[in-house]
């Protein structure tokens, strides 16, 4: 079949990729975000390639199949450090991040020019409930509200509203584990009335996130503080990237991400980023005082969230090396979303300053029985998954507020593997297997 000029033109479009964020798959997505000609989209309907980045636990294969089937034809799948589903055994798997973007572009090109067929549908073409020819009118419905019209029951009222008490319908849905607005792997059951969250029940915790190996080394012996602090800043900047992108500030999000990828970023540039954020209205328009943690919860979460709530919890102030550099933990008072971001930015700046200072004096940590990770203090026990506290925090918030609160809270568990180790493909799969067991 001749390739039409329209298809040839389509092949030149930047590649719309819907990423399924598996375990330890984020790093490559950050790189893709900075790659020209690749666009990470939020809905599978807007994508021509499904990129599964990182391992997916087998108990979530069902969800993966559902997302896979939601891409409109023609589409293809690419598996990055992840085992393709059995049905898709012939799908492309890539483990080298350097060739990934090239492969994505080539794949899109082949799809458009008809050299590659669309990925097959995995699930049977059946409605959620049989409806054809059933019910009062042959569409599955019964009476006013009953039956399964067109395959699904209608929403019915479950409980009174938690704000104004009107008894209107509520919707119950399962979100995730691959919803791009939630942390990777987080799966929740949400009941909504209007756009207000009534109940939020965490089903599956988010995937563990891998820290850089320097944090693990710090538990074995002294490490250079400069290295530790730069790793800390990188982690926070990547977290900031996600939230800014969600808030519609793509340009600043990319600035944050670029800072994270620079080996020796200047603290002044972080200050510039903060000024631009304040000027853009991020603190006034997007974070509006919601998501406040009380003291006890903040202590449980630890890290930035605790310090944003006014708790001076920081392992670094215990360490001689840090004291030598004149380290003092920064805190905020409000403990809400805005305070957490202010805290994050202040800490990134502080980390880079400390790093610059420590580099000159070649300061090392002294204690190795604990380390301050970006997720909180790792001393005796490491920071654990805290996503269940969302069940109490988010009900009563509007959808946008809930998501920006969620983005500001870092609740993910830490992976037992370091970033450098986790990039080995078998390991990613092994974690998936292990978590299932």
């Amino acid at each position, binding site marked *: 079949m001749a390739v039409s000029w329209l298809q040839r033109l389509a092949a030149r479009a930047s590649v719309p990729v819907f990423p399924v964020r598996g375990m330890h798959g984020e790093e490559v997505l950050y790189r893709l975000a900075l790659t020209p000609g690749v666009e990470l989209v939020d809905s599978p309907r807007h994508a021509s390639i499904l990129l599964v980045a990182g391992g997916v636990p087998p108990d979530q294969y069902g969800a993966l199949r559902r997302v896979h089937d939601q891409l409109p034809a023609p589409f293809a799948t690419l598996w990055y450090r992840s085992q393709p589903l059995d049905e898709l055994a012939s799908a492309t798997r890539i483990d080298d991040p350097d060739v990934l973007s090239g492969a994505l572009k080539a794949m899109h090109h082949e799809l458009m020019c008809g050299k590659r067929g669309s990925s097959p549908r995995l699930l049977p*073409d059946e409605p959620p409930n049989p409806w054809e020819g059933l019910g009062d009118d042959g569409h599955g419905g019964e009476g006013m509200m009953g039956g399964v019209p067109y395959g699904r029951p209608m929403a019915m009222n479950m409980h009174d509203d938690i704000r104004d008490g009107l008894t209107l319908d509520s919707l119950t849905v399962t979100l995730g584990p691959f919803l791009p607005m939630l942390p990777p792997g987080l799966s929740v059951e949400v009941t909504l009335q209007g756009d207000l969250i009534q109940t939020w029940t965490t089903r599956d915790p988010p995937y563990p996130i891998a820290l850089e190996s320097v944090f693990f080394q710090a538990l074995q012996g002294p490490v250079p503080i400069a290295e530790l602090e730069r790793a800390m800043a990188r982690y926070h900047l990547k977290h900031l990237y996600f939230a800014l992108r969600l808030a519609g500030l793509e340009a600043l999000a990319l600035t944050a991400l670029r800072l994270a990828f620079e080996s020796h970023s200047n603290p002044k540039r972080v200050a510039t980023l903060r000024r631009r954020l304040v000027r853009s209205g991020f603190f006034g328009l997007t974070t509006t005082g919601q998501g406040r943690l009380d003291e006890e919860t903040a202590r449980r979460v630890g890290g930035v969230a605790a310090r944003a709530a006014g708790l001076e919890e920081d392992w670094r102030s215990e360490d001689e090396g840090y004291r030598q550099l004149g380290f003092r933990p920064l805190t905020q008072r409000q403990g809400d979303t805005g305070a957490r971001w202010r805290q994050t930015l202040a800490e990134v700046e502080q980390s880079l300053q400390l790093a610059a200072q420590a580099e000159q004096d070649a300061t090392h940590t002294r204690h190795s029985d604990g380390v301050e990770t970006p997720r909180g203090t790792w001393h005796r026990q490491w920071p654990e998954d805290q996503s269940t506290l969302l069940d109490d925090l988010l009900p009563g918030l509007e959808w946008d507020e809930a998501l920006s609160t969620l983005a500001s809270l870092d609740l993910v568990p830490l992976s037992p593997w370091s970033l450098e180790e986790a990039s080995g493909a078998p390991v990613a799969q092994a974690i998936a297997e292990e978590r299932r067991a």
Partner: protein
Amino acid sequence: MELLTLFFIVLIAAGLGLLIQWLPMRHQPMPTYPQRAPFLGGGLPETHAWNRYHTRYYPMTILLIAFEMEMMFMYPWAVVFVEQGMKAVMEMGMFLAILSVGIVYGWREGVFKWQ
């Protein structure tokens, strides 16, 4: 004549919008049921999304209707404003003052917040 032109403009724009959709879609098969399921990141809804949707800003909408009704008086007023001078200023000033009372009251009672 002007209306006829406008009519053709509407017709062509809407026709174009429908044609761009219809032409490539003529031969496409209906997507499968799994593809048609709502996108919730792999999750599933229990029910249809259509429901008695709890609109959180309902007092604002009724307030708007009352206000908008008044605003329609202002267009003819604007046309004769310069001609009538001070009289028009006084009349509309009074009118708007009455209205602003409504807005201020609504704001104090938290009408613009999500209920």
